[in-house]
């Protein structure tokens, strides 16, 4: 049994063509799964469905074999276990870095302030931002903000971490400091699903790459196969364009 099982998931925003049209995908424990595909193919939508930020129209999603989609599911409980990091960081601008990280553990998990703070400082030290604990987010660089956002998700001790194009809003020289954290997390065995346009990185870290197109998983496989020997016509065309743009 996979950790996350996505079965025939459908989702439409009311348009003519559904955004997700029967996605089926397994994420095993300790796996890093990369979602790639053209802009607008539904990568963000799929991630948002997994942690219940969007309700799905059909199919089901299971976590540890337990159905977490559909009516009657405690969405708040689900989201405690499934962390997500967004492209635009979305730190809370009215809270210091430390409060950003400790707010949810204290208010949602009921940890004591001291306990949450200790854990937060530990995590901040790991990303070498413990000096910035008292700063407000607008005083940090984009890369620093994104690292804090990752730590904020980690402070909830998620079972799975969803990363939605976490480097797309960053200047090129800040990308690596964020990707280093993901590498670290992978070596620790954190289960992650990431949507990305960083093909080089996807190739390096992922256990499995899924090419999304037309609302379905068009092709999936280990990175070595997808990137050097894509079977599907569309995958090939997509990767060709990426190579031409100099991104692989």
């Amino acid at each position, binding site marked *: 049994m996979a950790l996350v099982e996505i079965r025939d998931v459908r989702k439409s925003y009311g348009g003519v063509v559904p955004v997700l049209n029967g996605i089926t995908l397994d994420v095993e424990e300790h796996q890093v799964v990369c979602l790639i595909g053209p802009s607008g193919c539904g990568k963000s939508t799929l991630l948002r469905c997994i942690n219940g930020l969007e309700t799905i129209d059909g199919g089901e999603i299971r976590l540890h074999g337990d159905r977490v989609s559909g009516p009657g599911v405690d969405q*708040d409980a689900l989201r405690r276990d499934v962390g997500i990091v967004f492209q635009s960081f979305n730190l809370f601008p*009215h809270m210091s870095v430390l409060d950003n990280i400790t*707010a949810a553990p204290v208010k*949602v*998990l009921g940890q004591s302030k001291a306990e949450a703070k200790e854990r937060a400082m530990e995590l901040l030290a790991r990303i070498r931002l413990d000096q910035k604990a008292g700063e407000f987010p607008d005083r940090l660089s984009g890369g620093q903000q994104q690292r804090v956002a990752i730590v904020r998700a980690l402070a909830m001790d998620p079972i799975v971490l969803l990363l939605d194009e976490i480097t797309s809003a960053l200047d090129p020289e800040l990308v690596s400091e964020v990707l280093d954290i993901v590498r670290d997390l992978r070596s620790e065995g954190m289960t992650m699903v990431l949507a990305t346009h960083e093909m080089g990185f996807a190739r390096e870290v992922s256990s499995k790459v899924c090419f999304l197109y037309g609302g379905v998983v068009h092709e999936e496989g280990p990175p070595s196969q997808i990137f050097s020997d894509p079977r599907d016509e569309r995958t090939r065309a997509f990767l060709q364009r990426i190579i031409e743009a100099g991104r692989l």
Partner: protein
Amino acid sequence: MDDTSDASQPPRIRAPRPTREWKPAPPKSAKGLATAALGVVAILIAVGLLTASTVRDGLASVGFEEGWATAGLFGIVAVFLLLFVPALKGFSCASRADRTAKIDVAEARAETAAAREQSWLAIGYTAAAAIVLIFGLFLVANEVAVGRTFFDLSLIFETFHLVGKAFWVNIEIFVIAEILVLIWGLVIAVARLAPGRAGAPVRLIATAYVDLFRGLPAIIAIYLVGFGLPLTDLPILRDMTPTMFAILALTLTYGAYVSEVYRSGIESVHWSQTAAARSLGFSHTQTLRFVVVPQAVRRIIPPLLNDFISLQKDTALVSVIGTVDAFNQAKIIASNHFNLSSVTTVAVLFVLITIPQARLVDRLIERDQKRMRAGG
């Protein structure tokens, strides 16, 4: 790209442009403006002298001591003389600019700019002084009819303690109403944002409430509440004083306005903040409480203060249900003396408490705009 001497360069299609001769343009003369500035200052002083003597006679007839009045009024006109300083400076800068225009264009430009600035300074202050003068004339026209009706100083001083004491009623009403409005408005705003299908009836009722009280003139709300509710003879309502009814009516009316202020503040917080909070496991209520409302509050303070200023002014409406507030008290005095000066006292009191708040709103808006320009 460097395109001067590269051999691999594609052939030029257009002929190179001929170099154009360029001569620095001398500045336009500011002499005319400077002359005009001198002229208006001179006219102001002439009119000022005339007005001062008329106003003095007027003041004397309402019991002002003549010596003080003379000293004060001609003192003011003497202050007007200061306007000659920028006007003359402007004029001399303008003439210097004209002289140097042929020799040193940069110098002439600087002088012209200074001349314009000084002249406009003189004209601007003259305009302000002229408005004060016109107002003074209006007061003393027709044998100080206006002045006597609105500014009978002896009456103002004589009745100040009555009006001032009654003004405490207004203060009591608006302070309590403002506190209640802050709470009530938030309740309505949150009700209007109640999520899901189960929230629909709550949203509907809250919307209907806001529509009703936003459309209903405050004076009618006060009238209906103040006269209607006591007639019902229901427990609690039966024992309420007119002041309490006034507070209730104003809270109901302004609660509707303020709930809209809250709501627009809450909706101005980007949805990605809600997404981030929900994805950390915060519930709907926790998200509002810890993430959305704290961010909204900063943005709603200026519009909120504006609503408070209107609320304070609307406390004068409670006189329709017989509450003896400052306005009601002043009206009683006015009809006893056939003179409106006590109402002037109320007017001044209202304006005085509003000004600091208005400036505070300005400052807050300015601060927010600065922050916006700074990018977050």
